[in-house]
């Protein structure tokens, strides 16, 4: 094909390349690592290519099979999809780098095909424009995530993975039932077509309830978060990073997308936005307090995810008045959390590998012995706390601003309290990293690439704070929050 670089079908490459790579990695296990690393790089390139296309031509649409909706399936990308794809590509690249050193021969042969399927499924999910197609991608993401979470094979990990799988399957069925109701109520599974037809009928409210509950369970919003801490804490570190950074964001993205296009008018009328905000606030406080109480590092980081997910939902009651600013803040927060949380889990994995344990009280001068890793944890912590100049700061600031201008003091207070609690649990870890432990432990060397992968992500989370003028306009491509978004 003589097409110039920019005109390559990047959206399709993002889906098919990882899937093909997964099959190659499965067929030739000895080459799995090489295939995986090359694919991770190629996916970064493809996202850049897609972003370029979006900047040039606006919205991306591809009618698969040439049929187009409603008969066929379409692929779709706007600024919001692009941002999620960027998060996936960046985190995916760093985690791949990390995993290349983390997994040894036999484990590597198990890890790479599963991770590559997950990568392709995530990309397919972010590019989907069809609620049934989203169901299939959700199942792919869910099953791959469970198989990855069980990778260590310990009783704890297996129990956690089992609970994770059951929650996932229950949610998938509730989601599918919602899809069935929408199809029979309004005659399509294409989101754009549904958006023009949906009306406040009982069937629409039932679908809203089923789909929202299903996605809340998959996103682990308090009080449906019960499966997350054990699953994320007992997985191997690179998997924990993928689960916390990307997999929970995938279901959140679907919820956000469907809310923006279909459900906002219905949901706001029924007070569901207020309920989501309330649950979000409870998640921020509960998750942060639980994180503070943990004595194991990975559990602390997992509970921090429960809290940070809460922030994403604080936006729902605020969106009615100032939708573009609030939803941009949410997208920014999701991206910042993906980078920072992946960095934290990778750093925790380094500390675990180094000391053979992840007891926070026994971190034993980690700052001297693993300076890069401790720096990564601290920098990621800055973004999680929402301090300037990090990406987390931009997102939380925009959200706080919206809350204050709307006079929602309660929500503003929760955001500030959540930030203080986050500071408390981050400094708890850093404090122990500076103090020598009572008894000396033996230690194992940590490969440099594992330290650098964590630091790379943490730096990206900080750098994101300076990128707002560049990224916020990018997010506006196709006006995901504008014209047909959640307005009054």
């Amino acid at each position, binding site marked *: 094909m003589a097409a110039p670089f920019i005109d390559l079908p990047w959206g399709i490459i993002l889906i098919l390349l990882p899937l093909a790579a997964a099959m190659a990695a499965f067929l030739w296990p000895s080459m799995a690592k090489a295939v995986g690393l090359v694919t991770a790089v190629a996916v970064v390139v493809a996202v850049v290519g897609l972003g370029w296309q979006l900047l040039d031509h606006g919205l991306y649409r591809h009618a698969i099979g040439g049929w187009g909706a409603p008969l066929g399936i379409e692929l779709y990308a706007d600024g919001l999809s692009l941002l999620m794809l960027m998060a996936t590509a960046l985190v995916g690249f760093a985690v791949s780098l990390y995993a290349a050193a983390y997994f040894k021969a036999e484990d590597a042969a198990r890890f790479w095909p599963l991770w590559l399927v997950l990568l392709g499924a995530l990309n397919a999910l972010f590019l989907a424009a069809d609620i*049934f197609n989203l169901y299939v991608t959700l*199942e792919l993401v869910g099953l791959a995530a469970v198989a990855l979470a069980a990778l260590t094979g*310990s009783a704890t990990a297996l129990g956690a993975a089992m609970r994770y799988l*059951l929650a996932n*399957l*229950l949610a998938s*069925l509730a989601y*599918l039932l919602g899809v069935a109701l929408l199809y*029979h109520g309004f005659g399509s599974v294409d989101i754009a077509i549904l958006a023009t037809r949906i009306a406040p009928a009982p069937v629409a409210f039932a679908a809203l309830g089923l789909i929202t509950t299903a996605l809340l369970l998959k996103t682990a919003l308090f009080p449906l978060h019960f499966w997350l*801490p054990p699953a994320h804490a007992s997985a191997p570190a690179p998997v924990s990073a993928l689960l916390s950074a990307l997999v929970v964001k995938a279901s959140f993205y679907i919820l956000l997308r469907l809310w923006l296009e279909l459900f906002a008018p219905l949901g706001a009328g029924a007070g569901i936005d207020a309920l989501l905000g309330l649950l979000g606030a409870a998640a921020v406080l509960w998750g942060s307090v639980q994180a503070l109480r943990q004595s194991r590092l990975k559990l602390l980081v997992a509970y921090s995810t429960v809290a940070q997910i809460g922030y994403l939902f604080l936006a729902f009651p605020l969106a009615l008045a100032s939708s573009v600013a609030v939803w941009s803040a949410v997208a920014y927060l999701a991206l910042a959390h993906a980078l920072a949380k992946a960095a934290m889990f990778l750093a925790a994995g380094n500390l675990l590998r180094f000391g053979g344990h992840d007891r926070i009280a026994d971190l034993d001068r980690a700052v001297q012995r693993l300076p890069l890793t401790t720096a990564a944890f601290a920098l990621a912590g800055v973004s999680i706390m929402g301090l300037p100049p990090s990406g987390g700061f931009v997102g939380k600031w925009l959200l706080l601003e919206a809350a204050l201008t709307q006079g929602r003091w309660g929500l503003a207070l929760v955001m500030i309290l959540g930030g203080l609690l986050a500071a408390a649990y981050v400094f708890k870890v850093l404090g122990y990293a500076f103090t020598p432990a009572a008894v000396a432990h033996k230690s194992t060397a940590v490969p440099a690439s594992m330290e650098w992968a964590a630091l790379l992500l943490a730096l990206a989370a900080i750098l994101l704070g300076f990128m707002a003028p560049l990224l916020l306009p990018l997010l506006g491509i196709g006006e995901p929050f504008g014209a047909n978004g959640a307005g009054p």
Partner: protein
Amino acid sequence: MNTAVPYALVGVGLFALGFYALIVHAHLLRKILALNVMGSGVFLLLVALARRSGVALPDVVPQAMVITGIVVAISATALALTLMLRLAAASGRAELPDGRED
């Protein structure tokens, strides 16, 4: 009489029965059965409702979706059963670990 609505209601019933069993039973094999029954309920509703107008032309798109769903269901079941057996081998019980769910 139109067959669509009664079968759709049976689908609703199966979904609810499966949901109930998923919550009250501890044994993992039973939970897996419950999820499969829930799935059948969703499938039944999906196909049955397509026939409620009773026009000559039945809408086959839901049928194709259900075939996709059946394949997804057996894939998930196979993975769940293996996970259950592995868990039983490691912990001696085919139940979820108690643990605090906070």
